[in-house]
């Protein structure tokens, strides 16, 4: 039988926030275990949680970035969960009254068409402690590090709108882009500041009802989420084809073997409202004030780039994909570089070079104003494209200006028509066959001749000028 997958995601995002969710301890990774702790976040008896205003604002801003509606009232529940990383017996989470509901993000589906994926709700919750397993002599011991305990998280719970691994990966990337734009979280699956569980079930194509869902955990990259879902679709299809039931449980993704394995039965702890954390009411005025803190978001920026700078849809999408990238691009344009060549240079030259240098766009040694000088020299034909490529690489490791490097390397473009005509005449004399071909209408012979002339000039000649001169010389003869 042919099946269709029904996929929903639960995405945990660790918020950028100076403090933990319910105390003033620093919300920062640190080597020294149990150095950012207090009676509240090690959950001692008698402690009373103190909801952090900045965490609440970051969470609300995240909701707005994902097009969710902040609820008039939200509240925390005690979600029962027994494990040594939560020695309080419950996690403070928003089960009954989440901070926001009814969000959405648009992705480009596998068919290239835009597809709107809905977010059921987003709620806040506290992170748990970290367990460190060691051996002491013969004995295996587990140690608890509370530095992460109480760190502020939001959980994004989607509607089961995704149908294939591509949808899930595109959605995760879109979430990451939106949240990074809002500046409320790092969203790195690799470093664990974004974690994703996937719920996957199948149904016969054309059917509304679906079979039992299975939860998959432990994917530490966007690609791993795609791979795990693909594997799970395959596994469940085989089970169904063999007439075996799919049971509700949780599976672990094994990135080494590229398979999922049984972890445990699905457990959902009960939740009772927590009487100690006051309920949260954000007024329309407060929500509007927060919304004003949201920067221009990717889709708005993309539209503006296309409209204002004449970029193609693809170029505009590329230049608005990351906030730092877009900012860089805009500095170039504001410095007078023509937008489309600037975008093409960034995509084709700058980003690959940046990757090679292991640098980040926000902190690169090649600042956008330095790059603007380089591009300006290229545009004014002071240097040619090949020289520009060489200077670009040198600029990463040197703090000299593009002009200084060009001087140093003798990269000034040859633009003297007399000297260039001399070179061309020499080349034409050496290559009579090519000249004859050109005369008989074979256009590629011109490229060959210009290439030869470029070689003669040791790369310094301006190829466009050479072409003009060649045309003149051919006309003269």
């Amino acid at each position, binding site marked *: 039988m042919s099946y269709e997958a029904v996929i929903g995601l639960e995405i945990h995002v660790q918020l950028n926030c100076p403090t933990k969710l319910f105390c003033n301890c620093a919300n920062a990774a640190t080597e020294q275990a149990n150095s950012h702790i207090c009676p509240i976040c090690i959950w001692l*008896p*008698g402690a009373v949680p103190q909801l952090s205003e900045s965490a609440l604002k970051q969470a609300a801003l995240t909701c707005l970035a994902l097009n969710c509606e902040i609820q008039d009232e939200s509240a925390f529940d005690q979600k029962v969960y027994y494990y040594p990383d939560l020695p309080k017996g*419950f996690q403070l989470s928003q089960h009954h009254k989440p901070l926001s509901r009814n969000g959405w993000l648009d992705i480009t589906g596998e068919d290239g068409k835009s597809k709107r994926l809905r977010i059921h709700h987003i709620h806040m919750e506290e992170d748990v402690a970290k367990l460190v397993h060691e051996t002491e002599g013969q004995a295996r011991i587990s140690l608890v590090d509370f530095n992460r305990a109480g760190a502020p998280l939001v959980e994004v719970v989607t509607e089961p709108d995704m149908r294939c691994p591509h949808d899930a990966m595109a959605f995760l990337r879109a979430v990451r882009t939106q949240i990074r734009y809002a500046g409320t979280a790092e969203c790195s699956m690799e470093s664990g500041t974004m974690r994703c569980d996937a719920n996957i079930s199948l149904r016969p194509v054309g059917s509304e009802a679906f079979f039992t869902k299975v939860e998959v955990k432990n994917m530490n990259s966007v690609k791993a989420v795609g791979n795990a879902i693909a594997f799970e679709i395959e596994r469940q299809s085989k089970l169904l084809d063999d007439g075996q039931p799919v049971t509700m449980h949780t599976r672990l993704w094994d990135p080494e073997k590229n398979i999922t394995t049984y972890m445990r039965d699905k457990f959902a702890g009960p939740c*009772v409202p927590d009487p100690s954390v006051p309920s949260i009411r954000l007024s329309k005025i407060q929500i509007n004030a927060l919304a004003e803190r949201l920067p221009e978001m990717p889709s708005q920026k993309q539209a503006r780039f296309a409209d204002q700078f004449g970029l193609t849809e693809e170029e505009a999408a590329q230049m608005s994909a990351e906030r730092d990238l877009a900012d860089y691009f805009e500095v170039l344009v504001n410095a007078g570089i023509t937008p489309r060549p600037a975008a093409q240079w960034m995509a084709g030259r700058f980003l690959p070079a940046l990757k090679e240098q292991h640098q980040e766009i926000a902190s690169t040694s090649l600042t956008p104003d330095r790059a603007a000088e380089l591009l300006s020299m290229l545009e004014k034909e002071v240097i040619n494209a090949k020289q520009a490529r060489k200077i670009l690489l040198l600029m990463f490791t040197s703090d000299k200006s593009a002009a200084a490097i060009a001087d140093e390397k003798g990269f000034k473009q040859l633009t003297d028509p007399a000297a260039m005509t001399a070179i061309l005449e020499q080349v034409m004399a050496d290559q009579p066959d090519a000249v004859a071909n050109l005369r008989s209408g074979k256009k590629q012979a011109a490229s060959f001749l210009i290439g030869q002339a470029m070689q003669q000039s040791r790369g310094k000649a301006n190829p466009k000028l050479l072409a003009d001169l060649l045309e003149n010389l051919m006309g003269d003869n």
Partner: protein
Amino acid sequence: MNDILFSFINSDPVTANSDGPLKDLRISLHPNISVAKWPTDAGSAALESYRPLEDATVVKRLKDQGAQLQGMTRMGELGFGIASDTAHLLISQKKSDAALVVDTMGEARYLSALAGAWGFKPSYGICSRLGLIGLVPSMECISTIGASPRQMADIFSVIHGQDANDFSMLWDELPEFDAPGEKTGQVRQAGIISEQLAELDEEEKKAFENALAELGQKGIKIKECAFPSYPLFREVHQATGSAEASSAAGRYDSVRYGRRAKGTANWNDMYLESRKEMFGSLVKSYLFQGAYFQYKDYDAFEHAARLRGLLVKQCRSLFKDVDIILSPARRRTCDALKAATVSDVYDAFALTLPASVTGSPAVCMPARVMAGDMDLGLQVIGPHLSDEMLLNFAIEMSQENTRN
């Protein structure tokens, strides 16, 4: 140091501020109110060897005002039931002037009646709960029992009020309470609840009527009020209280404190076996009841929460007609000291549960509702945040209404 009445005796009860206004007050505490470095075990093996890092806010405030903190009383396990409590004995034997106790079902009021002393449970949300190791966070209030209402008022004026570290307190401006005993004559109209009256036996009724007659002589009018939802108080308290308790007690895992079962194979078994060993059967039954609502019938819990809101509303409208509501504080026949089951405990506190459900303040006055030589206590409930009026009324009634 160990003692029959004290679970812990403070060898140096004189605080740094030995000239503070409370310097002459000897106060003992329920051992579920945190005092830094004192064994604060809430009467339970689950907190065996637990010593808080910080003082509860109310303790800090008492110390700052020079009160002599004598030590910890004994108390029912995790504050559920008072069978092993000693706070009332410390007062009746004059070993303490006052005791700070946690009132969740009516403990402070019941204990004060037992001691023949005064009891006061403040409005919910005006005394910090920071450092209170509780079981039912939405009901419990740090309360006082003491030999005189004046002392009770002095203690309350010190411990109540906004605590920047307890966000669960009321945000609105709290009523001032600086000059206990200065206002008189605020209470003119008292109400009694027909449905509650109907539950009393003849002897209780007679004792209560005598107390009412005495009040009548002082010019207080008595009015009988109907409260058809009255029987719901107990159901609502039990469903809400047990579910909150089950969730709150989830933290007792024997890892960092508390008695740990020996010879278990893994952490899961250690939790299970330790919890089996550490809790007494009364607390266990209560936690099981709560777990039922958590796991099997959450709708019933939600229903109880809605009914609680309704009861608060109905109570509020009752107070449009009367200044206070009167009742005995305890039944003659249901002895909380002998309560062995959850039902027994609820039977014993039947008359005090309503103020815990609604968060209303209540005072218990001694020697007025006498069934033979048994003091049933006169419970006076006021509207939410009428604490000042209640304490002034208590001072007025104690006829020691002169400042010196």
